[in-house]
């Protein structure tokens, strides 16, 4: 089975490499789907998020939340576009499975190529001064991510003179599809992500009393470059990208709360290597009722809060984030309802 998967991935990669002309950054259905929890913490989430909203950051996070969950999210992208998500996840044996649909929509004004149509710059300027665009066109991108994750405890024995301890290894994968329409042109795309993280009991490993859980994670996005095939157009690829992160989840007695300090960073990206940067996140979880979050993205500060309320047989989580981006303020609200036997 494993050999077959590897073989398929390799063949897909070779197939995609055959396209001679292509573009990059088809990342709307990937990064724009980040949850409000992640956004509030500077875009981190590789090691700290759980549930269906975490699969954008790391599909391994899906196993961190073993309830049944329904998730929805609305994102006003800088006042220029909208992004909606709808997801569901549930346990399936030793696995946690989920699906999330992510939609991004943008309305744009159509404008003609007047630089070539009106050669005289004076006339062109006068035309533009009086020009009021009325005709619009749309960009709509619908992405579906199917995710599966599993957790395996690793019994670590370092020798007769050391304690033994258990590290939980969580790993998961996304298979994602996208359907895009832009000004009447359509495209289909597919891609895969895979992630892993290790949950390490800090006080056992480092002999520090009351040291909380340490989480290390890796996520590989677009491991088959996530090709997007346009009908009658040139094709695009997503960037293969490897990110890593570390988090400390430290319980504190006051208010029965937990502090999380999170750090994510790029390790590798194909074709385009972004500016080296690290994202920082901070979360104060109070009595499983209220979460307060701050963070710093590569270029901006973020913040947000979450409230957990008992509703019927389950609980309702409401999260809000705000981001002061170079483009504009961005507001994001998400709702999650979950129920089940264990978390």
């Amino acid at each position, binding site marked *: 089975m494993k050999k077959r998967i590897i073989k398929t991935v390799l063949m897909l990669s070779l197939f995609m490499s055959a396209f001679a002309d*292509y573009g*990059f950054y088809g990342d709307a259905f990937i990064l724009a789907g980040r949850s409000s929890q992640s956004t509030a913490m500077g875009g981190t989430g590789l090691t700290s998020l759980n549930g269906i909203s975490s699969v954008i950051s790391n599909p391994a996070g899906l196993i961190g939340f073993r309830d049944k969950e329904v998730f929805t999210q609305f994102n006003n992208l*800088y006042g220029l576009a909208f992004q909606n998500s709808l997801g569901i996840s549930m346990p399936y044996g030793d696995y946690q499975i989920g699906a999330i649909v992510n939609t991004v929509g943008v309305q744009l004004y159509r404008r003609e190529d007047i630089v070539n149509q009106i050669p005289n710059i004076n006339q062109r300027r006068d035309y533009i001064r009086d020009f009021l665009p009325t005709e619009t066109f749309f960009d709509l991108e619908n992405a579906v991510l199917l995710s599966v994750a599993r957790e395996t405890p690793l019994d670590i024995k370092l020798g007769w003179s050391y304690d033994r301890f258990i590290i939980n290894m969580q790993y998961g994968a996304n298979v994602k599809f996208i359907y895009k329409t832009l000004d009447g042109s359509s495209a289909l795309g597919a891609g895969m992500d895979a992630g892993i993280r290790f949950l390490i009991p800090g006080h056992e490993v480092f002999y520090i009393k009351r040291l909380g859980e340490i989480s290390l994670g890796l996520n590989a996005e677009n491991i088959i470059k996530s090709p997007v095939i346009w009908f009658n*157009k040139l094709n695009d690829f997503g960037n293969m990208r490897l990110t890593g992160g570390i988090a400390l989840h430290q319980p504190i007695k006051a208010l029965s709360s937990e502090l999380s300090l999170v750090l994510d960073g790029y390790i590798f990206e194909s074709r385009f290597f972004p500016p080296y940067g690290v994202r920082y996140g901070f979360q104060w979880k109070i009595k499983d009722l209220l979460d307060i979050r701050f963070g710093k993205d590569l270029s901006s500060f973020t913040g947000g809060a979450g409230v957990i309320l008992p509703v019927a047989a389950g609980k309702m989580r409401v999260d809000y984030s705000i981001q002061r981006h170079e483009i504009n303020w961005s507001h994001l609200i998400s709702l999650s309802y979950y129920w089940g036997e264990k978390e």
Partner: protein
Amino acid sequence: MLPYSAFEEFSFIRPFIVNSFTCFTNTFSNDNAIGEMLIRHPRAGVSVLSSTGYGWLNSNYYIYKKVTQFMYEDQMSHGDAMRHALTDYFFSTFGRNSNFRDNVDGQIVYKYFRKSLYYQMCILGDPSAAFPQPDINSSFSLDPKSAVTGQNVDIQVTDPGITRGVLDIVGTRGEERKYPVRQKIPLAFQNGQASFMMPEHHNITDGLAQLVYWDDNNKVYAGAERLAFNAPYISSLDYDPGQPGISDSAGVRIRMELDTEKNITQAYLRLYRDPVSNASYSSLALNEIENGVYETEYKIYYTSETSFYLAENDTASAVSYHNGNYFMPVLAVDGDSLTGDYYRLAPVVPSGKDISILDYSIEDGKSKLVLFNQADTAVHVDLHIRVPGMEKLSYRDTLLTMYDVDGQYESGTEKINTYHLDFLPAYGNGSLKIDIDPIEIADTDTANNRLVMNVNNPWLLSQDGQFINTDSDTVPLPGTTFLNIHPGTDNGSRQAIYINAYDRSYSLSGFGASQAVQNLMYINTPSEQIDFRVSLPAESLNNNKILAYLSTNEDEFHTMPLETESGTVYFPLRKKGYYLIAYPDENTAPDIEVNLNAREILTRGYVSERSDFSVILRDEYGVNPLPEFWNVLLDGEEIDRNNISIIRDGNIREMGLNFQLNMDVGEHTLQIVAHDLVGNRAESEEFQIVYTGESRLINYGNFPNPFTIKTTFIYELTEQFDDLHISIYTLSGRKIYTMSVQENAITDLPLQSIGYHEIPWYGKDEFGNTVANGVYFYVIEGNVDGKTINVKGKVAKLR
């Protein structure tokens, strides 16, 4: 080493400098180090030529020597001396051996020069500091001129108001061997007199008293007097029986009278050729002829001003020959050998040297005569200048020639006498004879008392309505359309003009209008106002040709008033400048280019109070620069010319106008009016300009949208922004491209310039990768007047 307080004593005179070989460590290691003292001193300068760790003493020494030389000899400031020394050093390293050269990245460099500059050279304190240079060289007197240790010596200065001074006692046997005996002896003057006590001088026998003194107004004097150490007790020293003459057959002796109370057992004279530069001497024996009176053993017979021979008494048979005029007495007193001062004794030299003519030329409408006086005295000279064949052209005067006060017969001293005489030879080519006759001396060489030469005189001189350097009151002007020149009658003063006439082949490229000018005559004069008339044939001005005047510095141009009599046209010459005949059929108006912020102005363009307008006026035959021939009209009204800067660059074919406009919010019109030199008028179109009164960034969006290969962001600024950039983001907010340089702009303007902008984007990221089909956000953000303004938009790429 002087204490720090000593510097304060001199602080009001001049700054101080220390040039140091040593490194920082020694110069600045503690509070008492010289560097520390000087760097704290308000008028001090210190240069440090450090060789620490590099050992390149030659470089330091070379530059040190140069710095000192420049400061002493050329009286340079500290900073200037350092700069010149480094420059000298740099060039001195060229062409030296390979030890000086290094190879860096394939380039030959001079490594020690680099090291010196980089590691070793610095100036601290005040770079304008300079060695105290006396304002006035002055002399003073010492009494006595020779003194023993502990003896008081009086100093007398004649300059008024002297209050203080500083004296150095310097031992010397010529300037090359000078060494200090006692330095910085402070003096306080009263009524021009001060005194000091002769210091210990060990075995040094004579030297200089170098004195710097000043008054309460900081007027500084400096001078030096010879001072003999150990008084030789001389009462008198002179020739006997009297001053000798050259070739005087009687011969003389040098006689010296001494203090008889001293136990003087022997006396003789040392003979020096030059007490300043030559320390060698020969001895002349003295005989004591009576108590305390000594005479040279032999008679002295001078054969020239400086050479003589010794002969037996009353004979002319030479015993020995000598050269020199300076004598120093040497006395044996109580077992010591004491020396006295230098005494100059020389024969009487008769005045009979040559007075000659060196040169004659014409400058600024006057004759320039240069004479050479080699006599030892001022001499009157009878001067006569004639133009052969012209009775009226003769000049006679008596000149007083000066002689060189130092008796040094060198070129460039006062004995070169230059005279400017009102006499001028006839206009045009001719010959000249000059004679001089020295009056008070017998000129020993008359060969140079006459000069005959050919001159080409382009100057005319008039007085009382007559030319005074011709036989006529009318002078023809050769080779031009202009016929004759006449002296005017309005002004009777003496006036001279220089005439340089050109025909149409003359190129006015230096001024521009070469094609339009048919004839041109340039008049130069040292006078502000002149009074002449010029005539030319009336047909020269047919076909409406104009006769015009253009001032030398091209700030005045106008046509000339004309009078016509019997087919001849006359016009006045009142000022120096160009008088020209211009073609009448040149009817091309000047070209007017109007720019806004160095770019061609667009009508209906946005402007602000900070907008820079520049106008370039061009005309092949010359733009008329006079204020009444150009205008800048805002809404039809002329703007204040004081707000317009005019750019000429010495070319009348172009003129630039730079200005800013103050206006109310709303639409305005701007128009430029200009004329060329022959009167053609040009009006620019009426440019509509819009002043919004506020800083706005108007985003018109990107065209086309969606785009395949290229889209153009179009925006407009109503104000000059301090900076502006355009950033492009993916939908997730990831910045992929930033444009902030003008090379991106179609309109070839910096992105932040006021006005209309078109900035293309070719769908690439920072690294040149083609971006995917989809939507991207863009932000145009700029800063103006301390606030940030941005606009956003969406751009779709669909290949």
